[in-house]
């Protein structure tokens, strides 16, 4: 009996030791040199595995970063601080990048009459293939939520049959942009709060007949834009977000409210005692909101000022403050 116990103990111990030793040797022989930076970078990345960078998950992206195939700024969700930290780690040049958010250029949804009764597969792609759209407008949001499905951050909701993006949650990864078969989602700089909310290239009459919030191509916005950043392209207003100053005049002028102004609070500009009365601000103001004689301290007409901040950029004395103004981080 004791023989069995002895044999058991010895053989199991021997086997365990042999296997352990074998594995240890094998581990040394087959050691794969791993770049520890990959793991470090992976820990820094958001870990959402959204695929917005074009690589298979965050680990794939981290690998590509170390190999120098990708830039830290390709990862939209990680934000500028993380990207800078990764650039530091890899010894890369830091880049200024503006965070962007996805914007759905449609507000139609339930406002637009339905075209067909649909009982098929509940994805926007299927509808597009079968019938182009569920509703009369061929350009609008189908509202079955293919973008909601792909959003790794839960930032899109379908409200009244239209996809709506929550700016706070959106990281600008761009997954929804690719998923939308209607191609009505685009990435817009986060600081630009005035956005076109229609994608229809139809003529005014056709749009008016089916949707009361569609762009009818009247061009009022383009005519009234103080910086001329709106252009009419094929019956649809298009904003050049590079030049837009968030003034919101277009949204106010739009007869069908197909431009949304998400600015909740427009600050006023203040000119302090450093003003030398050079008149630069007066010249640049699109709204005649600054008055004053040359050589004297200028004043802002508060009723007219929309807080666009154009004057702050040109003031040589830095005498103009626009606290919290949109699109202007500086508070000189």
């Amino acid at each position: 009996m004791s023989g069995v116990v002895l044999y058991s103990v010895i053989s199991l111990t021997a086997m365990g030791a042999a296997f352990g030793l074998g594995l240890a040797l094998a581990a040394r022989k087959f050691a794969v040199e791993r770049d520890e930076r990959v793991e470090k970078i992976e820990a820094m990345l958001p870990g959402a595995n959204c695929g917005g960078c074009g690589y298979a998950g965050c680990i794939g992206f981290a690998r590509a970063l170390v190999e120098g195939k990708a830039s830290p700024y390709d990862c939209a969700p990680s934000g500028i601080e993380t990207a800078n930290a990764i650039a530091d780690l890899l010894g890369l040049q830091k880049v200024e990048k503006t965070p962007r958010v996805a914007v759905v250029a449609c507000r139609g949804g339930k406002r637009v009459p339905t075209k067909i009764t649909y009982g098929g597969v509940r994805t926007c792609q299927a509808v597009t293939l079968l019938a182009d759209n569920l509703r009369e407008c061929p350009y609008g949001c189908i509202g079955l939520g293919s973008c909601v499905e792909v959003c790794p951050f839960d930032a899109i909701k379908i409200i009244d049959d239209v996809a709506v993006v929550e700016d706070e949650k959106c990281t600008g990864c761009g997954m929804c942009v690719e998923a939308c078969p209607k191609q009505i989602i685009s990435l817009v700089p986060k600081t630009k709060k005035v956005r076109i909310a229609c994608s229809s290239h139809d003529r005014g009459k056709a749009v008016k007949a089916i949707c009361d919030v569609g762009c009818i191509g009247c061009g009022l916005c383009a005519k009234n834009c103080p910086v001329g950043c709106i252009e009419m392209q094929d019956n649809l207003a298009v904003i050049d977000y590079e030049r837009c100053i968030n003034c919101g005049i277009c949204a106010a002028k739009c007869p069908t409210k197909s431009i949304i102004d998400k600015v909740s609070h427009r600050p006023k500009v203040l000119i302090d005692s450093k003003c030398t009365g050079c008149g630069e601000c007066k010249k640049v103001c699109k709204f005649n909101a600054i008055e004053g004689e040359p050589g004297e301290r200028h004043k802002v007409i508060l009723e007219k000022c929309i807080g666009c901040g154009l004057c702050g950029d040109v003031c040589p004395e830095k005498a103009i403050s626009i606290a919290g103004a949109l699109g202007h981080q500086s508070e000189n």
Partner: protein
Amino acid sequence: MDVGRLFAIAIGAILINNFVLKRFLGLCPFLGVSKQLDSALGMGFAVIFVMTMASIVTFGIYHYVLVPYHIEYLRTIAFILVIATLVQFVEMVIEKTSPGLYRSLGIYLPLITTNCAVLGVAVLNIDKTYSFVETLVHGFSAGIGFTVALLLMAGIRERLELADIPESLRGVPIAFIVAGLMSIAFLGFAGLAAE
């Protein structure tokens, strides 16, 4: 040793006594890794490889270590030790020699360590007193059988994604029902041979 017996063992392990659908071994990966055909295929190959290797090594351990010292009762723990070591070793070798395969198998390899189907193969080989060649064939066919079941399941589940299923049955519940139906269907193979 005739080829006919080997063939019977292979058919037995693949169809008649399919490890997943008849013996109900390895159900965890069967439901866990059967969502997509690609990963199911990867998992299948990994299992075939590990099952064959495990059959060979456990055969040696049993007949040349456990039997001579009359400690056959230790076979379960010894086999688990062998399988775990083997999987670790295989993982290392694959990572070194074929990074592409390693990446595609990736997380599935360690999963196999605790797969009862692998232990099942090793134990069955002993119980049926197979010779070495028979053990080899049985291990390999058991892996094939597992892969076949996994692939069938993955194919069905990919289609289920688009099917109109009552809300309360979506996801895992319908997968369980499908697994049950497949198991019943595989019962039909029982008439192929009298084992």
